[in-house]
């Protein structure tokens, strides 16, 4: 039976034969490969689950992790100038035998004498690291995180003032009992949160302060700026007059450009080397004074490691991420290689009808990219949900994690690496498969 014989010639020699191209045109290749990839996914729910689970879980962890690192380390509110900033947050004092030591934040006097006098920075601000106080509203206690700062603190940071303004050098010099509070504290302390707080009084540890400004609160993960209430350093309990080099302050040095960091560090090192020894502190004599102007990351790491460990930190993080990425990639390669024989028949058919090996390699790579992008899309969705949950759960007070462009681009790059890693190896194996042998398998 040959249907339509009368109307259409069965001759195979009609002149419609278009030239051989050796590859599928781009949209066709993409459509065809994606169509096949989709069918393969549906045909093997278990493989699909394992593959997508591996990719999306890894990418989700990576994205949330990078988002968290970005949140911790990158310039964000209210420290958008962090890339131009150096911090002096720690001084270590040791005796000559290095048997006795004292390590901690620096004193106000240290900053005033040795840091504020530096010539190379644009500005130097200061603040206390951590301080705590209590306040009471209708008999209910509110625990507050306090900060004592100078006026330049408000210039090297970029707090958003919702009301009022910061205190200036004159206010500080005159010892006015004023405070800048956060919007969170305003909500907790004042009954009518819609009414302006500026001009009202707030009692903290039985001392009355006049509110002169309200700022949008900073996340608790930014310890140099996060607080509930900010006081001029001249108000009581700031300990700004204490003697010695160690205290409770941190210096915030704003450079004109990051290129000035070297000069600032060198100048500061020179100043430190000229500090008269021995240093008398807490009844002990110290001859070694170790401190440095550090970037935010260096400063953060110096709390955990003795030496400057930025390079080690990034190496460890990089290695961890690489290993983390490698696991699902190896799994994918394994799954794909083991699945290749199942698709050997299809490969044989395509080769028999004119697919060059290179085209098939492309097809396989595109298929894998499709699967990894699908995993990436799931991961993006999951990451969004997790980040939203972290931001709204209150686990990290005022957290503002985001999937920013850098994180997203990184994830897309990871997807591409996955796709290539997991597609290229099986694709090359497949390309070498003899056609006759491939056709023998009845996939």
């Amino acid at each position: 039976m040959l249907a339509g014989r009368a109307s259409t010639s069965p001759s195979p020699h009609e002149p419609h034969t278009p030239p051989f191209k050796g590859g599928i045109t781009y949209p066709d290749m993409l459509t065809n490969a994606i169509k096949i990839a989709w069918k393969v996914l549906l045909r093997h729910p278990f493989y699909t689950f394992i593959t997508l689970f591996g990719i999306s879980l890894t990418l989700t962890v990576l994205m949330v992790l990078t988002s968290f690192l970005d949140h911790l380390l990158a310039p964000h509110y209210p420290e958008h100038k962090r890339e131009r900033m150096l911090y002096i947050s720690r001084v270590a004092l040791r005796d000559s035998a290095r048997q006795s030591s004292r390590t901690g934040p620096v004193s106000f006097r240290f900053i005033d004498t040795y840091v504020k006098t530096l010539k190379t920075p644009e500005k130097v601000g200061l603040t206390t690291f951590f301080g705590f106080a209590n306040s009471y509203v209708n008999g209910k206690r509110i625990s507050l995180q306090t900060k004592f700062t100078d006026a330049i603190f408000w210039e090297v940071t970029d707090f958003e003032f919702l009301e009022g303004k910061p205190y200036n050098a004159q206010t500080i010099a005159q010892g006015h009992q004023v405070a800048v509070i956060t919007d969170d504290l305003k909500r907790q302390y004042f009954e009518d949160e819609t009414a302006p707080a500026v001009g009202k009084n707030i009692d903290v540890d039985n001392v009355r302060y006049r509110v002169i400004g309200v700022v949008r609160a900073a996340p608790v993960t930014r310890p140099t700026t996060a607080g509930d209430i900010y006081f001029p350093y001249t108000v009581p309990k700031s300990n700004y007059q204490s003697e010695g080099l160690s205290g409770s302050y941190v210096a915030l040095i704003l450079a004109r450009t990051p290129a000035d960091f070297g000069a600032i560090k060198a100048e500061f090192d020179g100043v430190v080397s000229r500090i008269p020894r021995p240093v008398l502190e807490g009844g002990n004599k110290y001859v070694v004074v170790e401190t440095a102007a550090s970037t935010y990351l260096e400063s953060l790491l110096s709390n955990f490691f003795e030496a400057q460990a930025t390079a080690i930190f990034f190496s460890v993080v990089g290695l961890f991420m690489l290993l983390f990425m490698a696991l699902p990639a190896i799994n994918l390669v394994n799954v794909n290689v083991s699945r290749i024989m199942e698709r050997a028949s299809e490969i044989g058919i395509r080769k028999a009808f004119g697919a060059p090996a290179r085209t098939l390699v492309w097809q396989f790579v595109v298929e894998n990219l499709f699967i990894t992008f699908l995993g990436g899309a799931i991961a993006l969705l999951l990451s969004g949900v997790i980040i939203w949950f972290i931001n709204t759960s209150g686990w990290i007070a005022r957290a503002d994690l985001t999937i920013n462009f850098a994180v997203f681009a990184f994830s897309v790059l990871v997807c591409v690496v996955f796709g290539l890693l997991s597609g290229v190896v099986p694709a090359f194996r497949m390309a070498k498969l003899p056609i006759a042998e491939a056709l023998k398998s009845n996939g």
Partner: protein
Amino acid sequence: MLHLKNIEKVYRTSTIETLALNNINLAIKKGEFVSVMGPSGCGKSTLLNIMGLLDEPSEGSVELDGQPVASYRDRELARLRNQKIGFIFQSFHLIPDLSVLDNVEIPLLYRSQNGKPRSEYAREALEKVGLANRVKHFPRQLSGGQKQRVAIARAIVGNPELILADEPTGNLDSGMGNEIMNILETLNGGGATIVMVTHDEQMAKRTHRLIRLFDGTQVS
């Protein structure tokens, strides 16, 4: 159009050497309908694979349209298979994840062929084998005979000069086998050169010429 000279095919493993084809000399003329017969394992499929450039001989040469293909690389061999040869397999070898239409379009995917005309040619080919109403079906939804007709449509969609059929009726009942044979005869009548491996004497009798193999050697 197809010339095989002193073809020898040896399969080697680390311990065993098997001579699958020995000193085969064949010339297939344009427009011929040739059948190849012989007992199982005598080298019929190996011969067809070598004719179709799916496998390389260990010795000897294959000439297609007067051109020896031994020196051709993967891409050139792919071009020849795509433009000059159509395959029909005993077990159909349809891709289960693709629809009937998509399966038939496969040879055209590897040409400079846009989607719309490609689809039209595939529908035309399916019409020729009486399956125009099954374009959206998947292979699992078809009977054996229908699958083989899809395979024939795929083999002819690119207008190849040579059709190689490896036991095209082997998996079908006699009625369906006859239908497939009718289609092949019609294609041959239209000018296609066909080489068909078969176990069926009745089918072989309907071709122009019969080649018999025994233990890898041509006996008639």
